[in-house]
């Protein structure tokens, strides 16, 4: 009890000190508070100025040959564009367009442009003398008349009109889109001209006595529900807010984290702190809470500052004439803000822990700052992904770090979350797990003397390779085990790319080829090569010793007993993550010569190769972690992921844990091989069992298949079948008994595990005394 209080007291001491320390640091204050408070208003001001300029500055436009424009609505009136045909919101444009007139020279060729004149215009635009030139050809009015007459005639005597309509005359528009002002002039004049062209069209219709609506029928009436409930804003906010939140939570966590860890290391105060009796975990938690506080403060300040600036600027913009931006964008709803704050806590906890661990790893603040970019780069897709409308909150996405929580936040803001609330459980649980792992990682960094007293080793690949070989131990190190696992996964990925997909005529021979290659090349070879090159004792590394005499039969029996439960798990997994049916897969085994070949490829080969790699090399290396179950779980995760298909991976991870336990308890790979072989064989045999017609004759003669199936199988859903309770319960009991047998076997402990155990035992004693 006393110990617990001590803990929190120390955490509080560290937290208060760190916060005070950061607050005394001008750089932090600048990054955390000053920057967001001033950055957005400045940005808003600049944006406002730009828009203001765009709205208010006049454009000079040279109109050439406007005399030829006649008939139809007036384009020009009193030296300006006429506003009579313009819609209300465009009427202000007229005041912003300064017109200059010039008569067109008449000595041009009929079809082409007067080139000398065109050059002069180009120059006028290029020099900025005017921003745009509109040229009306001299025959503009005549051609317009022709066109009208043709339209009229066609309407009055439709049967006689066979000639195509003459081309509607149009002015030429010269501008330079590379110039801001010229592009602006273009936009303005284009609006005027197209309104005018519409007016001309309407007039033509009128004169032909056709109702205007014929040319532009109304397609639909619309009523936007979001306009009433504010949901339109929600959609936008749901995308913007999580993005800003996460980015600033990362940035706000990063700089204090670097200062708190790498900075302390650099200034030499970390050693002082670590020689105090505060436990490493107290120190890490204290620092973590500090980093979190800054991360959250930065995120909130940024959101608030940005929100206010945005609203002010929008408000100003909306006052302006001719503004056509996102109209009527309001504040996010109160509930959105509330959920944002709730979600901010786990998000900043996660990133704070990650940043803290990275910063603890860094030797100096400079090195620490190098790590910001990779963190952002990895985080980015995790935030951008949930912005896509195609990505929805499912069990799969809910487990992805950051993505799950951002999707949940999106649902909360959009208001669609309550339809999928059960998914909040995996989101929250997985977020907790990720936070825990990140914190654990940070604590490990603080416990690692290699990290804390890391000297600047001059790294060279050659020296490192020599070091690996020269200083190799009996069994591989943790890093080597992780490297081997990663290598296997990478090879598997590339083999997946290189191999042909399953097609209609995918037969047993193809399957066998792929299976053999992937087992031998992808899984066995890396493990064996690494064993030979990086360890002194292949026998110890790959656990080649024979186990206790009872272990192999017990493992075989355990695999049999576990089978109904594995099937049940399989059914559960496929219900949660429905599996695509692969057509080719059904007939895959048909081409096999006999069942023994199938068992060889599916059961014997993987049992040998995978056990040697995952329970041999990888698990042996991971046992240097000092925690048996952590080693078993990580090796099982590698084993699971190497299966490639999500549904298989989940089951393989569970089975991998069980086999890993057997390997640890018996100190032998052969127990696992036996279990694995039986496990895989049963998967094949069970599918055969369900089809009595495929049984061999002698079996069919003795047993009535249908009747047997009725006893064995329990149909609990349309596609869901598990073994009947009469099988499940006894197997569970026998299985538990077998696990107890394995539990009581005397087993080998790695040095690290033995040390950890004695530390745990001793600290237990101290606590008691």
């Amino acid at each position, binding site marked *: 009890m006393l110990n617990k209080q001590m803990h929190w*007291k120390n955490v509080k001491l560290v937290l208060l*000190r760190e916060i005070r320390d950061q607050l005394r640091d001008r750089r932090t204050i600048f990054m955390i508070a000053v920057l967001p408070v001033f950055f957005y208003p400045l940005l808003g001001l600049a944006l406002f100025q730009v828009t203001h300029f765009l709205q208010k500055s006049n454009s000079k436009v040279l109109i050439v040959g406007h005399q030829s424009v006649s008939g139809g609505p007036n384009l020009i009136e009193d030296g300006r564009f006429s506003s009579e045909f313009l819609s209300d919101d465009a009427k202000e444009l007229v005041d912003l367009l300064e017109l200059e007139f010039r008569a067109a020279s008449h000595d041009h060729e009929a079809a082409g442009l007067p080139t000398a004149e065109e050059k002069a215009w180009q120059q006028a635009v290029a020099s900025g003398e005017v921003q745009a030139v509109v040229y009306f050809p001299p025959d503009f009015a005549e051609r317009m008349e022709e066109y009208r007459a043709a339209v009229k005639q066609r309407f009055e005597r439709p049967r006689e009109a066979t000639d195509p309509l003459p081309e509607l005359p149009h002015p030429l528009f010269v501008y330079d889109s590379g110039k801001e002002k010229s592009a602006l002039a273009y936009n303005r004049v284009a609006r005027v001209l197209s309104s005018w062209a519409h007016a001309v069209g309407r007039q033509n219709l009128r004169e032909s006595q056709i109702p205007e609506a014929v040319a532009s029928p109304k397609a639909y009436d619309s009523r936007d529900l979001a306009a009433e409930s504010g949901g339109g804003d929600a959609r936008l906010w749901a995308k913007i807010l999580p993005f800003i939140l996460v980015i600033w939570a990362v940035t706000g966590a990063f700089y204090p984290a670097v200062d708190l860890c790498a900075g302390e290391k650099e200034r030499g105060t970390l050693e002082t702190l670590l020689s105090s009796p505060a436990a490493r975990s107290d120190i890490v938690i204290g620092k973590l809470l500090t980093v979190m506080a800054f991360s959250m403060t930065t995120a909130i300040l940024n959101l608030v500052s940005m929100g206010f600036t945005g609203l002010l600027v929008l408000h100003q913009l909306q006052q302006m004439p001719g503004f056509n931006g996102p109209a009527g964008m309001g504040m996010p709803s109160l509930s959105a803000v509330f959920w944002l704050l709730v979600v901010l806590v786990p998000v900043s906890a996660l990133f704070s822990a990650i940043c803290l661990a990275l910063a603890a790893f860094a030797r100096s603040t400079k090195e620490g700052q190098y790590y910001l970019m990779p963190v952002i780069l990895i985080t980015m897709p995790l935030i951008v992904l949930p912005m896509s409308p195609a990505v929805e909150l499912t069990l799969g996405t809910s487990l992805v770090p950051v993505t799950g929580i951002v999707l949940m936040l999106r649902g909360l803001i959009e208001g669609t979350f309550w339809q999928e609330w059960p998914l909040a459980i995996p989101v929250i649980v997985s977020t907790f797990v990720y936070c825990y792992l990140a914190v654990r990682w940070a604590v490990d960094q603080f416990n690692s003397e290699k990290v804390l007293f890391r000297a600047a080793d001059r790294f060279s690949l050659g020296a490192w390779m020599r070091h690996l070989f020269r200083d190799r131990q009996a069994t591989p190190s943790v890093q080597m085990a992780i490297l081997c696992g990663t290598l296997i996964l990478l090879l598997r990925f590339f083999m997946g790319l290189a191999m042909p997909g399953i097609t209609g005529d995918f037969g047993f021979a193809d399957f066998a080829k792929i299976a053999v290659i992937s087992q031998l090349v992808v899984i066995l070879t890396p493990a064996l090569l690494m064993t030979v090159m990086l360890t002194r004792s292949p026998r110890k590394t790959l656990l080649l010793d024979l186990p206790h005499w009872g272990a192999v039969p017990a493992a075989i029996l355990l695999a049999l007993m576990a089978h109904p439960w594995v099937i049940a798990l399989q059914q559960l997994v496929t219900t949660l993550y429905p599996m695509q049916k692969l057509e080719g897969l059904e007939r895959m085994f048909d081409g096999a010569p006999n069942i023994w070949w199938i068992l060889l490829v599916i059961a014997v080969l993987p049992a040998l190769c995978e056990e040697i790699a995952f329970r041999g090399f990888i698990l042996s290396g991971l046992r240097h972690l000092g925690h048996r179950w952590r080693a078993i779980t990580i090796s099982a995760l590698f084993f699971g992921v190497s299966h490639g298909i999500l549904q298989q991976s989940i089951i393989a991870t569970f089975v991998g844990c069980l086999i890993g336990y057997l390997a640890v308890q018996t100190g032998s790979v052969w127990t696992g091989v036996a279990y694995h072989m039986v496990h895989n064989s049963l998967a094949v045999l069970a599918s055969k069992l369900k089809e009595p017609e495929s049984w061999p004759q002698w079996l069919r003669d003795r047993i009535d298949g249908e009747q047997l199936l009725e006893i064995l199988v329990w149909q609990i859903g349309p596609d869901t079948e598990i073994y009947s309770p009469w099988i499940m319960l006894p197997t569970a009991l026998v299985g538990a008994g077998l696990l107890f047998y394995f539990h009581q076997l005397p087993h080998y402990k790695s040095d690290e595990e033995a040390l950890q155990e004695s530390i745990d035992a001793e600290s237990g004693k101290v606590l008691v005394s």
Partner: protein
Amino acid sequence: MIHVRDLQKYYDDLSRGRQVALSGISFDAHEGEIFGLLGPNGAGKTTALRILATLLRPTGGTATINGYDVVKHPAQVRHEIGFVSAGTAVYDRMTAWEMVAYFGGLYGLADDVLAERMEGIFSRLQMNEFRDVLGGKMSTGMKQKVSIARAIVHDPPVIILDEATSGLDVLVARALLQTVMQLRDQGKCIVYSTHIMREVEKLCDRVAIVHKGEILASGTLEEVRQRHGEQDLEELFFQLILGNEQGGLRRTDQRPEADEQETERAGA
């Protein structure tokens, strides 16, 4: 107080392979005594003291402080010691008073006890004139005083000082040595590492001469002098180190210490 038996520490170095920082050193230090570790730079003194301060884990051997094993009870060991080394700086953005109070808090001292003890320490070490100066603004001497104050605020029975006078001017160094002697007189067990002979001669009750991770000679200064027939400590030091480098001179104290170790084990 301190029992160190066959303490070993190896590092894996990329280019040079396995490096021996300590190849099995053994020594004892008792209360009311200053035990000196004398050796050139890189001898392994800092590694040994960091192991005692639980900052490093030994590769082999054992070390206990006041009965607590440094590997198995690191937290208890840290309660028993005050550790000052070249690597234990003071915080730049904390005042002297805040710094000492912070560590007092981490050592679990109650506020009233802490305040009282700090007043005592600050006046004894003459730190009152800079109690509100930030670490970043302090002189090296002030910083060293803060470090000492920080290390003794919880009144630990064992104080470990690693090259404590490095970078100090003569006056401050002298004041520090006096403080150390006062602490010894209060009954503390002090382990003091240095490469300066004069400090050893002045300060240490017993000494171990360390070179390349080995103890070449140990005992009271008189014992060491007599055993090697050399009155001048500096000469003695050079002879030992030169001998060790040439491999000619064998460690003379190997047998007695091993015997002592065995008898202690038998006794236990």
